């Protein structure tokens, strides 16, 4: 350390690069006045953690989608006009098919790099939505959606829903047998809406399914309407991110009023720019070596044909699963058919699922009555009920996924498809409850372990034998940073139920509402293991000094460090 030279500083305008770039930059700044904005942005500080980069995967996948999608529009013909295929894929040579399908075959077999681009486009679509989900899970489990970020959470949910629509529209465009079957699924979904369903179907498809309109319409939705909405909402999402500043993990020196991290230039420009190329390269690699959506194998769409293993892309798999699990409830009254077997699992569930996600920050606000701003993240264990609710929702989603792939699971694992369906029918209700209980228990256990570490130190790996032959492991006190990080979260207070009547027996106004709130507050925080107080820590320290059970991490120490790495090596 002592031989490090003091860095010398040369102002950028005096460097060789600065002298050359100065002229053009000045010219530009005098005309657009960007320097003021740019100065703020390039000095903006972001905190550093790998989980903050999950949303970036989604953003970069979206850029890859725009680039590869533009390439595909040069050759794709969004038309349901019947033509005879004369391209180079011989097993379909001479077949009548729509122009949309024929042009997709041309992109796959007769356009140089077309198949690669198609596969990159499809893989990055899958990654786009998957990355949105993992990003959303990160935000959820760390409590990053709390005030002031509730609105950005809602924008995120909208982005997710639009991503599903965009993905589905794109999946339907090639007009192959699989995508046509998927469209038929959506047709059924629309028609299951009571009373107005069949009118809506005629409106969307321009007549009876499949008609001649749907591909051009979906094309417009896919390349113009939804991408424009996505772009606008992504811009709003990012602007709010800049305005709110990024959340950070708690630690020494990090407060609700600052952001500890590195500036955009040069650190994050390099990191994020590099990560963009990692994402692009990874997607290109997948497009090059992994086949996706082999439309030539499915053949052109024909409403009288269907293939085993017809599935939607993964992000619609949970809706597919819900429909497969639903019992066949349907009735007809006054000439209207009510297809509850499709309406409940497809339309209602899809709506309820995203509404619940979007509403969650407001529900939690109602429970906590917390109106302060939060810029420090919570560890998932310190919000046990929220974490457990999240895992329960993931379990619900996962069971529906299994239900959606029941035929593939049946053939691959030699199982009975009905057995899988019945298993899922039970687990879709029981599974989330089990997951909730287990997760909450794990969180509470981790909280107890944290408390134990703060009070009595961590396990040092040093085993001692007492004079009477017993073995015990010595503990070592945590460093102050370690103690701080485990105790920096807030102490939670469970709202106490007010008395229903005052001491003169008069009913307290609003008591019922307050009691209801006290009930949910207890549900959320009743079992939380509270962090030790300063007095607890002092007392434990005092106690430890007396019986000599703790081992100081001094020069003589030969145990393991706080991270479990042996010190002596």
């Amino acid at each position, binding site marked *: 350390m002592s031989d490090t030279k003091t860095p010398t500083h040369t102002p950028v305008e005096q460097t060789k690069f600065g002298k050359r770039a100065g002229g053009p930059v000045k010219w530009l700044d005098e005309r657009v006045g960007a320097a003021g904005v740019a100065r703020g942005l390039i000095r903006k500080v972001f905190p*550093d*953690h*790998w*989980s*903050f*980069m*999950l949303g970036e*995967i989604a953003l970069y996948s979206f850029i890859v989608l725009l680039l590869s999608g533009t390439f595909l529009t040069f050759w794709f013909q969004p038309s349901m006009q019947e033509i005879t295929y004369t391209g180079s894929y*011989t*097993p*379909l*040579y*001479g*077949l009548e098919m729509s122009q949309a399908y024929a042009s997709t075959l041309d992109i796959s*077999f007769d356009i140089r790099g077309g198949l690669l681009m198609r*596969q990159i486009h499809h*893989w990055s679509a*899958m*990654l786009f939505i*998957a*990355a949105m989900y*993992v990003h959303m899970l990160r935000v959820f489990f760390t409590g990053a959606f709390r005030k002031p970020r509730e609105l950005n959470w809602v924008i995120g949910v909208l982005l997710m829903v639009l991503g599903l629509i965009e993905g589905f529209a794109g999946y339907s465009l090639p007009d192959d*047998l*699989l995508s046509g079957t998927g469209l038929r699924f959506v047709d059924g979904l629309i028609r299951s809406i009571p009373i107005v369903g069949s009118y809506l179907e005629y409106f969307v498809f321009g007549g009876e399914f499949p008609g001649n309109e749907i591909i051009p319409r979906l094309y417009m939705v896919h390349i113009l309407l939804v991408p424009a909405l996505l772009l606008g909402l992504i811009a709003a999402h990012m602007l709010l991110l800049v305005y709110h500043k990024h959340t950070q993990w708690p630690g020494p020196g990090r407060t609700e009023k600052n952001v500890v991290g*590195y500036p955009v230039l040069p*650190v994050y420009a390099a*990191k994020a720019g*590099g*990560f963009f190329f*990692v*994402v692009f390269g*990874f997607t290109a690699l*997948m497009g090059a*070596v*992994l*086949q*996706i959506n*082999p439309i030539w*194998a499915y*053949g052109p769409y024909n409403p*009288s*044909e*269907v*293939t*085993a*293993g017809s*599935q939607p892309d*993964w992000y619609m*798999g949970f809706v597919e699963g819900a429909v497969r699990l639903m019992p066949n409830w349907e009735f007809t009254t006054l000439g209207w058919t009510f297809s509850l077997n499709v309406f409940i699992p497809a339309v209602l569930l899809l709506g309820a699922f995203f509404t619940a996600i979007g509403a969650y920050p407001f529900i939690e606000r109602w429970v906590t009555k917390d109106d302060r701003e939060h810029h420090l993240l919570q560890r998932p264990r310190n919000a046990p009920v929220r974490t457990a609710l999240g895992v329960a929702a993931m379990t619900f989603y996962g069971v529906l996924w299994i239900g959606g792939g*029941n035929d*593939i699971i*049946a*053939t*691959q694992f*030699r*199982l*009975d*498809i*009905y*057995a899988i369906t019945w298993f899922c029918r039970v687990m879709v209700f029981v599974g989330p409850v089990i997951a909730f209980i287990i997760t909450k228990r794990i969180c509470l256990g981790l909280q107890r372990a944290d408390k134990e570490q703060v009070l009595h130190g961590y396990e040092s790996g040093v085993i001692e034998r007492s004079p009477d032959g017993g073995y015990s492991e010595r503990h070592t006190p945590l460093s102050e940073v370690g103690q701080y990080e485990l105790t920096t979260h807030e102490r939670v207070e469970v709202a106490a139920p007010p008395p229903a009547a005052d001491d003169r027996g008069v009913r307290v106004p609003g008591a019922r509402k307050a009691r209801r709130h006290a009930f949910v507050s207890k549900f959320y925080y009743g079992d939380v293991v509270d962090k030790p107080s300063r007095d607890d820590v002092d007392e434990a320290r005092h106690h430890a000094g007396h019986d000599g059970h703790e081992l100081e991490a001094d020069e003589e120490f030969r145990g393991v460090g706080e991270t479990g790495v042996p010190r002596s090596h």
Partner: protein
Amino acid sequence: MRFLSRRRRHPLAGFVVLLLGLVVAGGLYSTLAPRSAGADTADARQVETGRQLFLVGCAGCHGKNAAGILAAKGGNYGPSLVGVGAAAVDFQVGTGRMPLANSSQQAPRKPPAYTAEETAALSAYVASLAPGPAIPDTEYTDPSDEADVTNGGEFFRTNCTACHNSVGAGGALPGGRYAPPLDDVSGKYIYEAMITGPQQMPVFADSVITPEDKRDIIAYIESVSEEPRYGGLAGGGLGPVSEGLFSWIIGIGGLVVAAIWIGAHGARVKKQT
């Protein structure tokens, strides 16, 4: 001539004429009938060999006369094989489905227990019980250049993919039953399966799909299974389920690893030695 004319009213004359007629007719038949006497005995020998094999390996379920064995509560241990034809036996025994290793929802494909000759003998025996679909000519099972692959594809998508999947990867059926994968199934067995309808499969008689169309279907299946895997590793032809698995495990998994790597190599993160 006088010998004959004198006895033409003899009481036995009518019988003699009748006998003569029968001998002439029988003689003519035996010389003009299509099968030669040598082949006849070879066939008979093959049928007999087949019967012996049947009594050892099949009669336990199908009965000594191949008429099936009924179970006490309805249903049967083994169905009657009278009239199923040589094609059905050739398919079931040739693909190893019969004899059953154990009683299950469906007989799985496995290495055949009988040699080609023994299979032929069993087929001949069952075919001798009653007429049924015969083993098809190679003309229809070994598709040559005249097969119309595109036409076969249309028939395949209309009639087969609903159970067997668009690339013949197989599919699930209710109650633990399944449509088996079609990769490396020979054309003969595909044809026999179509005309006999083994297990869950319906029969596609020649009146429904002509032999030429059957040949085209076989040609399509072969051409698709022989084509290179355009676009890379295909995930078993299982479609979007395996694609979703790839995007989560390889895609998101790999990118999260990359994110952790970038996060761990920050500007001021120094590796501690």
